[in-house]
């Protein structure tokens, strides 16, 4: 596309956003205001509903997906312009969605035409909320040892087993799920199926974490009947799809999901709580560790931008997903450790009026962040992936 056409796209986009992005959607997004969509979608206000409706209609919740399935149909260059324009007005993302980040991309790659027609448009419009049935009690880092049984019963599959750490399973409409269809082959006996969470035999139970919150569930599957057209890809061909999806997951985790800090800026919090002496943080050891962290954080942001620029220029950056996930998890944990340390005992309050609400959120975020290096592939697994797939180091004999 020529530069002048691209500039034309920019001015159209700018005008459309000016007319359609409600002013209330141009303010920082707090956690409570995130829109996840779905059958029982919750909107913090009417503007948020309108913003999702308008962006979804245009396919701009999934700007580069084909317009045949409701996506925006934009080229990478056009999408870059759209993202710049959204950033220019500080527009909130209209939708957070595992469908957008994880399932949609693999469905576009591996799904049948009928499956894409059936599920992609509702992801784009935020009408279906998806959850991820991957981990099991006996299959964490060794995901491919998963044992949830899926039997061929002629006109349908019958699924029995248990999933765990299913993010927001209790709020999701559909699940994409890894199941065992062959017990004689490890990786080659896994299939990728999807089903409605209202199907009889699907039961979810939230798990309370050390942070006091319950973003994860146990999911019990008992004689769940799944229509055969809900198998994605070929039978026993699920592992390849599973790995592709993990790549998308790791990318989205590292570029989007981390970073909540309870509204507190680390440097400002440290300045106020620890105090300055001669213009420098009174705790010189903390000061140098904060400086080292801030520089590492900047280096990471620059790396994400460099990778995005390379992707726009047509380069493949999939190999960086594990590296990014590893680095992002570590940075978020460091940031929250430094934040809590900077707040002293004020950063360790649990609840009640005796604490600043932002500091209370920091406590919960700090505890929640311990999971960052476990979920979506542990840091150790991600280092394994970097060593093997990027550096080409051999497996042990």
């Amino acid at each position, binding site marked *: 596309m020529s530069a002048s056409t691209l500039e034309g796209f920019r001015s159209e986009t700018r005008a459309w956003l000016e007319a359609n992005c409600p002013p209330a959607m141009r303010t920082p997004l707090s956690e409570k205001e995130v829109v996840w969509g779905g059958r029982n979608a919750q909107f913090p206000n009417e503007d948020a509903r309108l913003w999702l409706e308008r962006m979804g209609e245009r396919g701009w919740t999934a700007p580069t997906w084909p317009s045949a399935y409701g996506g925006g149909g934009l080229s990478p260059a056009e999408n870059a312009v759209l993202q710049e324009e959204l950033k220019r007005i500080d527009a909130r993302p209209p939708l957070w969605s595992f469908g957008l980040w994880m399932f949609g991309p693999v469905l576009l790659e591996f799904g049948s035409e009928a499956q894409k027609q059936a599920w992609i448009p509702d992801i784009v419009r935020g009408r279906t909320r998806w959850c991820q049935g991957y981990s099991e009690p006996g299959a964490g880092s060794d995901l491919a040892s998963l044992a949830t049984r899926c039997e061929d019963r002629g006109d349908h599959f019958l699924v029995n087993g248990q999933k765990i750490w299913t993010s927001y399973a209790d709020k999701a409409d559909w699940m994409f799920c890894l199941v065992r269809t062959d017990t004689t082959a490890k990786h080659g006996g896994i299939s990728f199926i999807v089903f409605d969470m209202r199907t009889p035999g699907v039961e979810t139970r939230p798990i309370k974490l050390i942070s006091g919150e319950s973003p994860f569930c146990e999911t019990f599957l008992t004689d769940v009947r799944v229509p055969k057209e809900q198998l994605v890809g070929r039978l026993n061909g699920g592992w390849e799809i599973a790995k592709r999806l993990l790549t998308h997951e790791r990318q989205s985790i590292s570029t989007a999901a981390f970073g909540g800090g309870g509204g507190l800026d680390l*440097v400002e919090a*440290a*300045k106020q709580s620890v105090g*300055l002496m001669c*213009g*420098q*943080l009174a705790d010189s050891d903390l*000061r*140098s560790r*904060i*400086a*080292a962290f*801030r*520089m*590492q954080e*900047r*280096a*990471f942001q*620059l*790396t994400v*931008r*460099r990778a995005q*620029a*390379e992707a726009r*220029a047509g380069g493949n950056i999939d190999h*960086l997903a594990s*590296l990014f996930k*590893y*680095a992002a998890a570590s940075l978020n944990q460091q940031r929250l450790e430094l934040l809590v340390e900077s707040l002293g005992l004020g950063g360790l309050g649990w609840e009640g009026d005796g604490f600043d609400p932002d500091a209370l959120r920091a406590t919960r975020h700090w505890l929640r962040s311990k999971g960052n290096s476990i979920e979506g592939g542990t840091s*150790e697994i991600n*280092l*394994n992936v*970097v*060593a*093997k797939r*990027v*550096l*080409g*180091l*051999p*497996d*042990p*004999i």
Partner: protein
Amino acid sequence: MTRPLTEDQRLLQDSARDFFSERAPVKALRAERDAGRPFDPELWREIAELGFAGAAVPEQSGGSGMGWRSIGLVLEAAGRTLVASPLTQTGLVGVAAIRTLGSEAQRERLLPLLAAGTATTALAFDEGAHHAPTGIAMRAVRDGDGWRLDGHKRFVPDGATASHILVAALAAPTPGAAESLALFVVDATASGVARRPLAMADSRGMADIELTGVRVADDMRLSGRTDLGSTMTDAGAAGLERVLDIARIGLAAEMLGAADALFTLTLAYLKDRRQFGQPIGSFQALQHRAARMLVDLELTRSCVTAALDALDDAEGGDKAAAAAAAQIPALASLAKARAGDTLHLVSNEAVQLHGGIGMTDAFDAGLYLKRARVLETLYGSAGWHRDRSARLEGY
């Protein structure tokens, strides 16, 4: 802002890598060291002839006018094989000083000499073992229509061999005015210049330099620009701070090249060396160390690239240039600290992962290790730059 390389830059990168790996591999440095020479003059002539010395010199001054990102690519390629040459001090630091601080007449007169490699420069800034921009005691006082310089400089890179020394000194620009830092171009053979070569661990030509009543003509004082803004307390030092930042960013590029090449060497060894009946690179404890080094290298590359791009973006007088210029101090410190930390890690890990062979003089790891520490220390250690970053952010 980070952007992909242009076609010209890609060609330059390829030709620099090819040239240095063929003409100046690590064994060339070893040969110079064993012969007791800081560098090979014939190699320097070829470097200049290929246009590497003038990569950041504008075309009208005899260079290729390709900019800072380009000289960064050349320095990164040179860093890969630890090339010993005046390239960093002349093609980067000298060019930066004259472009940034020189008047138009000075630029026209001096830059062509540097691009052609016929003159070489050495920045004489620090006066002790640590980088200390506020610790300059060298004085320049008016002497007739010129200046008289007195003082001493320590650990001047290329100080023993450069044809011209760029001396940072406190000077009152006009009689009675407050003193501020200025840079003087001093002929290394001038009367009153005493150079004492230092045998450093990295086998390069550093020197201590003593100036005693050295006469310098007024047109050899670089004083063209005072509009650059400064985070140093001395407002007159604005341009000099930019020169130092360019030097830091260029050194970061050189360190990135060294770290990347040494990592590649180490990775090959992990795949090749067999113990307990298998390649040692199949052991998870070593795989994770290798993977962490790659993370560090990728982050460092982003910082170096962003800093070089900011230098190019800051050229010109528009608003975007001013915005890029404002980013330079933070990006320079980021790139220098990050590259220093990464090379520190990789150079230590390279020795350890190679085992006994890594401890031998015949193997290259030791040469990288020695060069690494000099580069890490020059123009501010990682710790110094972390402190500066905190100051820049107001804590």
